C-alpha cells in the first residue's frame, strides 16, 4: 500500500464533509420546522374532517350543482397531477440529458412527484358520488360478470395515474438506495435496522454499481414518455367530451406544458425554504436556481402561446357555443380568476427574462407562488366556465361557494406539505453519492 497523495486526502475530507452536511439536515428538527409540521398536520386533519362530513351528507356540501358537475375537486386533481410532472422531468429527462444542475433538485422533485400523485389520486375519489363503490372503477373479474367501460377517459385516468405513480415511486426509491446505505452506516439502534432494511443490503461494490446504473438509466427512460402520456390522458377527460371550451385538439400539449410549468414552480417553492432551513447553500447554488428559472420561463411562454391559440380557435371556428364560452371566460362571473391566471402564468414570468430577477431567490419564490395560484385557477377556469355556459341557455348557471370544498382543497395542500416535511427529515434531501461523484 503506497501512502495516499494529499489530493486524495482532501477529497476524502470533502466527501465526509458532504456526508456530514446532508446528514445533519436529518438530525434533530428545529422549532420552526416543528411549527410548520404542526400547521400542515392541522390542515390535513381539516381535509379528513371535511371529507367525512361530505360522505355523510352527500355532495350537496361540495357546492357543485346542475350544470356545473365538476368543480374544485377535479380542478385540484388536474392541478396535482400537473405538479407531479416536473419531478419526473427534472430527475428523468435531465438525467438523460446529463444536466448538471439536476443534482440539486432531483431528490426533492422526485419526492414531490410521489406525494403530489398521492394527493391527486385522492381527488377523483373525493369527487365520487358513491365513494364506497370506488372499486367498480377497477377492472377485475367479479360475480356480476360485468367490466368497466374502456371507452371512458376516466378509466384511462385510472391506468395512467396508476402507472405513473408506480414508476415514479420506484424511480424515487431506487435513486435513494445508495444514500440510504450511507444513512444506515451513520445511524445506529432501531434506526439502523430500518435503514438497513430500506437500503436492501447495498454495499456499493463495483458490480452493484454497474447494475444500479443500468437500472436507473432504464427507469429514467421508462419515466420520460410518461411525462408526456399521463397528462395527455388527463387532458382527454376534457378533450374527449363535446363541451364547448373542453373539446379542443390542443389540450394534450397544452396541459403537459402547463403541468411542467406548475411543477417547476412547485419545486422552486419547496427548495428555496428547504435550502435555508437545512442550510444547504453550499450544495444548491444560485446558478442552479437560475437554470430552473429558465425552465419556468420557457414553459410559461408555451402556456401563454396555448392560451392565445385557444382563443383563436374559438374565434375562427365561428361556432356560437365556443365563442360564448370564451367571451364568458374573459368577462363573465369568473373574470377575476381568469385575469389572475393571465397575470400569474403569462405576465409575471416574463420578468424572468431579466437575469438579476432570475438570480433573486425571494423574487423567484414569490413568482412561483403566483404561478401556482395561476395554474390552479387555469384549471378552475377551464372546467367551470365551460360547464357554466354550455349549449342550452336554460341551464346556464354558476356553482355555489362551498366551505367544505375549499377546506378539502386547502387540506390537500396541507397533506402535501406535511408529507414533504416528513420526507425532509427522514431521507437525505440531496443525492449524496452524486455530490461525491462530482468531487472527482
Amino acid at each position, binding site marked *: 500500500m503506497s501512502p495516499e497523495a494529499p489530493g486524495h486526502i482532501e477529497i476524502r475530507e470533502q466527501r465526509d464533509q458532504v456526508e456530514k452536511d446532508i446528514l445533519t439536515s436529518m438530525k434533530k428538527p428545529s422549532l420552526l420546522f416543528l411549527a410548520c409540521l404542526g400547521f400542515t398536520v392541522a390542515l390535513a386533519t381539516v381535509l379528513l374532517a371535511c371529507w367525512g362530513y361530505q360522505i355523510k351528507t352527500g355532495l350537496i356540501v361540495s357546492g357543485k350543482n346542475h350544470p356545473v358537475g365538476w368543480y374544485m375537486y377535479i380542478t385540484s386533481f388536474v392541478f396535482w397531477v400537473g405538479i407531479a410532472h416536473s419531478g419526473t422531468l427534472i430527475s428523468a429527462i435531465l438525467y438523460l440529458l446529463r444536466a448538471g444542475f439536476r443534482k440539486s433538485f432531483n431528490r426533492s422533485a422526485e419526492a414531490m412527484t410521489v406525494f403530489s400523485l398521492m394527493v391527486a389520486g385522492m381527488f377523483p375519489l373525493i369527487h365520487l358520488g358513491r365513494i364506497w363503490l370506488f372499486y367498480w372503477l377497477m377492472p377485475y373479474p*367479479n*360475480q*356480476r*360478470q360485468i367490466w368497466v367501460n374502456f371507452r371512458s377517459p376516466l378509466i384511462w385516468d385510472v391506468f395512467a395515474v396508476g402507472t405513473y405513480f408506480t414508476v415514479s415511486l420506484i424511480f424515487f426509491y431506487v435513486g435513494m438506495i445508495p444514500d440510504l446505505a450511507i444513512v444506515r452506516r451513520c445511524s445506529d439502534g432501531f434506526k439502523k435496522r430500518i435503514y438497513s432494511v430500506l437500503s436492501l443490503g447495498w454495499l456499493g461494490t463495483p458490480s452493484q454499481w454497474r447494475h444500479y446504473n443500468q437500472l436507473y438509466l432504464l427507469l429514467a427512460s421508462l419515466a420520460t414518455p410518461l411525462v408526456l402520456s399521463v397528462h395527455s390522458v388527463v387532458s382527454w377527460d376534457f378533450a374527449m367530451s363535446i363541451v364547448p371550451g373542453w373539446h379542443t385538439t390542443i389540450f394534450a400539449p397544452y396541459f403537459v406544458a402547463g403541468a411542467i410549468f406548475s411543477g417547476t414552480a412547485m419545486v422552486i417553492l419547496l427548495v428555496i425554504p428547504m435550502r435555508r432551513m437545512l442550510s444547504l447553500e453550499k450544495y444548491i447554488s444560485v446558478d442552479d436556481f437560475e437554470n430552473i428559472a429558465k425552465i419556468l420561463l420557457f414553459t410559461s411562454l408555451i402556456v401563454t402561446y396555448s392560451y392565445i391559440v385557444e382563443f383563436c380557435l374559438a374565434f375562427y371556428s365561428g361556432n356560437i357555443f365556443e365563442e360564448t364560452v370564451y367571451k364568458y371566460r374573459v368577462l363573465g362571473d369568473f373574470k377575476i380568476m381568469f385575469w389572475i391566471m393571465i397575470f400569474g402564468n403569462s405576465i409575471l414570468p416574463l420578468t424572468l427574462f431579466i437575469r438579476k430577477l432570475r438570480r433573486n431567490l425571494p423574487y423567484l419564490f414569490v413568482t412561483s407562488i403566483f404561478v401556482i395560484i395561476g395554474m390552479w385557477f387555469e384549471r378552475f377556469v377551464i372546467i367551470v366556465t365551460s360547464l357554466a355556459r354550455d349549449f342550452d341557455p336554460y341551464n346556464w348557471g354558476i356553482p355555489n361557494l362551498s366551505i367544505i370544498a375549499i377546506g378539502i382543497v386547502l387540506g390537500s395542500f396541507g397533506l402535501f406539505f406535511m408529507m414533504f416535511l416528513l420526507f425532509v427529515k427522514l431521507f437525505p434531501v440531496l443525492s449524496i453519492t452524486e455530490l461525491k461523484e462530482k468531487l472527482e
Partner: protein
Amino acid sequence: MKKHIIPIILLGYFGLLFLLLIGLETYWYLYEKPQSQPIAFSHQIHVLKMTLPCDLCHMYATKSISAGIPSVSKCMDCHRAIATDKPEIKKILKYWQNRKPIPWVRIHSLPDFVYFSHKRHLKMGIDCSECHGDVKAMATIRKVRSLKMGWCITCHKSRSAPTDCLTCHK
C-alpha cells in the same frame, strides 16, 4: 419477557384469527342464518306429505310479479278443522282473532332496484325449484340459492334469455 416472546406472538396471531372467525360467525348469524318464523310452518307436511300444489297458497305466481303470500283466512280455511289442537295452529287462530296478519320473515328477498317477475319465469316453464330448491322437503324454509346477479346471469345466458341490464334493473 424475552422467554415469553414466542407464546405471546403465537397467542396474538391466533387471537387475531379467532376474532376473524367470530366476525364471520356474527355476519352469518345476522344475514344468512335462516330466521325463525312466527309460526313453525312446514312445507314438508303441506307439500310433500299432503301433496298440495304450490299455487294453492302462492296463488299469484302465475299471474303477477309477486308470487303472493297466502292470506291468513286462507290458512284458516283448512285449519278451522284440521289439527286445531296443535300449538302452532292455535297461533294462527290467535292472529286470526286479533285481526293481525302473520309477520312472516322474508327469506327470498331481492334488492329493491331489481325487477323480478314470477309470472314471466313460470310462463317460460321454469320450475319453482330452480330458484327455491326442493321447498317441499324443507321443514323450515331456507334460501338455497345465492340469488346474486352472477347466478341470474349465468342462468339467463344458459337459456339465452335477454341479458340487457334493463331486464332486471329498475
